[in-house]
């Protein structure tokens, strides 16, 4: 790969799609707003980010690989390589075109997620409120967080600290305290995890779209299905958790899946980095082969 050609093609791609960063930037702004809402718990926040991340991936892929039609439109039959006709008919190396375009794709798709990482640096801690309705001993739940999240601490808040004479009220009824566990840097770790997952999702989405070039219905339906299913599944999971029956089962063995996953991430960062890098590298190699030979697949 000739480096000067790579940078030249990177600039050409920017010239082709000068406006394509507009929507990822809007998603990023929305991420900043949502991440600043401290009332959102990790799962809801992850779902929101999943939604914005998914839209950013679909948008960027559609714009960069399918000519700004949000990826829902398959290439026209007689213009199979429509958006690629100019670069493909020039003396540009196709592999270099792919790498340049993919770099823009990943950069654009990552904008909302990177923004979340940056925003999390201002509020790196995350607070987990322990449900009073849980059947299991709170101590078991606390033990999970204390074991798996280094530096986790218990925070107990008196919900009525400003009453004029608390001791008098205490005689009338039991005092109410709210317990929560503060996880230092958990918000940043969550953001990095979602960024990691988002980049793998982008690579796999690229594989899926370039792997199904022959099947036009796949090209049209896949983005729609994924756009509904991915964030929908996270939201559904959260809604199920909100039911009292589900909350009763919140014990040390049945903690929120996101927190369990994050605990695993914290303890296996190197493995995850290697796994992610391998998946993305394999996905890109496959996508590159499909991209440079796509006229044979139409």
């Amino acid at each position: 790969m000739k480096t000067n050609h790579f940078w030249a093609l990177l600039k050409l791609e920017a010239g082709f799609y000068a406006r394509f960063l507009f929507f990822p930037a809007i998603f990023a702004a929305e991420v900043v707003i949502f991440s600043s809402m401290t009332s959102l718990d990790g799962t809801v926040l992850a779902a929101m980010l999943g939604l914005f991340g998914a839209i950013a991936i679909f948008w960027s892929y559609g714009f960069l690989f399918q000519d700004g039609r949000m990826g829902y439109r398959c290439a026209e039959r007689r213009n199979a390589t429509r958006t690629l006709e100019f670069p493909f008919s020039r003396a540009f190396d196709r592999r270099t075109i792919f790498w340049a375009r993919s770099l823009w794709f990943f950069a654009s798709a990552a904008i909302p997620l990177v923004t979340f990482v940056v925003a999390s640096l201002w509020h790196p801690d995350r607070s987990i409120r322990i449900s009073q309705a849980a059947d299991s001993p709170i101590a078991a739940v606390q033990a999970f967080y204390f074991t798996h999240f280094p530096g986790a601490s218990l925070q107990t808040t008196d919900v009525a600290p400003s009453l004029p004479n608390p001791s008098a009220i205490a005689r009338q009824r039991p005092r109410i305290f709210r317990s929560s566990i503060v996880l230092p840097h958990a918000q940043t770790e969550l953001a990095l995890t979602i960024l990691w997952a988002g980049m793998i999702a982008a690579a796999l989405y690229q594989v899926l779209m370039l792997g199904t070039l022959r099947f036009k219905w796949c090209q049209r339906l896949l983005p729609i299905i994924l756009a509904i299913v991915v964030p929908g599944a996270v939201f559904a999971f959260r809604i199920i958790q909100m039911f009292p029956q589900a909350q009763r089962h919140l014990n040390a063995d049945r903690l929120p899946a996101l927190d369990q996953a994050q605990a695993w991430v914290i303890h296996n960062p190197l493995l995850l980095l290697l796994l992610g890098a391998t998946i993305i590298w394999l996905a890109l190699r496959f996508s590159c082969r499909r991209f440079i030979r796509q006229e044979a697949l139409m």
Partner: protein
Amino acid sequence: MPTSFPEFAIEADGVSRSFDGTAALSNFTLRVPRGTIYGFLGRNGAGKTTALKIIAGLVKPDRGTVRVLGTDPFEFTTEDRQRVGYLSEKQILPVGMKVGRLFAFCAPFYPAWDHALVDRLVASFRIDRCKRIGALSQGAQRQIAFILALAQRPELLLLDEPASTLDVVARREFLDEILGLLRQDGPTVFLSSHILSDIERVADHIGIVADGTLKISEPLDRLKDTVKRVRFYDFNRDPGSFAMPGAFRAQRSGREWLVTLRLEDPAQLDAPARSWGARHEIQDLNLEDIFVDISRQ
């Protein structure tokens, strides 16, 4: 780099290509001699653009073989691409770039890039280098695409409807440029166009494609010398239907028959004229008449 110099710049044998079950090209065979300006004609949907895209290596044929400058276009290296200029029917340019930047960007990819030609054509077409491509008219964008294809000094220039959005003056300049190019260093030009007067002005070879098959491929002079319209009249005996070897089209007009046919020797008309007891008159055709009659075959 080229390892051989074949006689033909483009060779296609038995090429077929379908889209969603509809045949765009069917057993398409073509030979384009080096150093010619080949006018490629056909009605809408006849398969011209598909043929051009296959030759440019942008669409793969379902069957058949293609050689462009002696190489399979699907095996083109960047060096091969430097030898082939291509202007597509609906060229999409990087709209966010300024004109000058696009030329500056493309130049290093081509060792034979002709900066002087770019300067001359930009001035001639009155294109503002400082403007973004997206801010220019369709005609101006077409001119830029044409300059890009020309400036690389290709051995083979593929032009798909190059003048379709140009005004008359720009079209004339464009044709003059092609003629000048040919006089200068003799590249092969493969030119598809609906504007038959343009083709007639510049082309020396003609190919007519209809229903995905090449019907005619020969020098323009020979085509005009041998394809004639014959008017049969004063019949003693009405032939009812008309069938003659080499006839492209026969149509009845009152008590006359007008037949467009390949006429190598006028004596070949004597026998049928005698059998019908008819007199005949041979008429010359221009390219447009020939194209219409062959396309309606």
